């Protein structure tokens, strides 16, 4: 599969980096000339994934988040967000809308938003090892709606 471009970023699971991650994704996708909705959907999905690492994967501690962006098939942005945190015990439950282990501070909408705002979402997780979320979004560009 042709990889047209890529970037790998590693940063600590501090909440100030939620904005950093959103902007890395947005800037990386820019050469594909995304329209406003595509750009904001991508940023929102990335924000949810990174927030999950901070709030859940590394709850009570700080760990490393590795974000890899690639452009594949000419106009598909693929973003993977990986952590070496606590892992997800029940992935099926975690993906249910409104389900959260995070108490009343959280809405339980992270995976739902990631799924709705991208074309494809894959999650792999192992308890005690970590979690990897891979998002793919085709960018049709500003000529389209």
């Amino acid at each position, binding site marked *: 599969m042709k990889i047209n471009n890529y970037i790998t970023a590693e940063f600590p699971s501090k909440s100030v980096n939620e904005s950093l991650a959103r902007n890395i994704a947005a800037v990386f996708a820019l050469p594909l000339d995304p329209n406003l909705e595509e750009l*904001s959907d991508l940023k*929102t999905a990335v924000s949810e994934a990174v*927030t999950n690492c901070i709030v859940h994967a590394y709850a009570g501690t700080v760990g490393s988040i590795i974000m890899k962006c690639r452009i594949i098939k000419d106009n598909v942005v693929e973003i993977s967000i990986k952590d070496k945190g606590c892992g997800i015990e029940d992935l099926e439950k975690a993906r249910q809308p409104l389900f959260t282990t995070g108490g009343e*501070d959280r*809405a339980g*909408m992270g995976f739902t938003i990631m799924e*709705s705002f991208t074309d494809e979402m894959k999650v792999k997780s192992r308890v005690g090892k970590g979690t990897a979320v891979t998002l793919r979004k085709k960018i049709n560009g500003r000529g389209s709606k």
Partner: protein
Amino acid sequence: MKISGNFKNGMLTLAFDGELDHHAARDAMQKLGNKLDAYTPRFCVLDFSGLQFMDSSGVALILRTYKRMCELEGRLSVANVGPQPMRVLDASGVERLIEISAAKEGGAV
């Protein structure tokens, strides 16, 4: 992110300026809670005209504010919502509980 409050005739209007993500929501919820405790309003309006971005952390904040307003037997509405925050609110379904209105064309008044 900045929140400024305006209390008049029993209505507390809270204007948000910036981005409402998990990083911002922690302080924001505390500020909101303090203002609700101070004014105990009948009506609370969250004015999102200055809100550039929101993710599900913002949804959680809205729901907690709604819960608090229910305790006060008051009402909550969210006004002047821009396109990106509206996408997130639509995905969350909160409009079943709370009145949500979009930003006017060409920017909020």
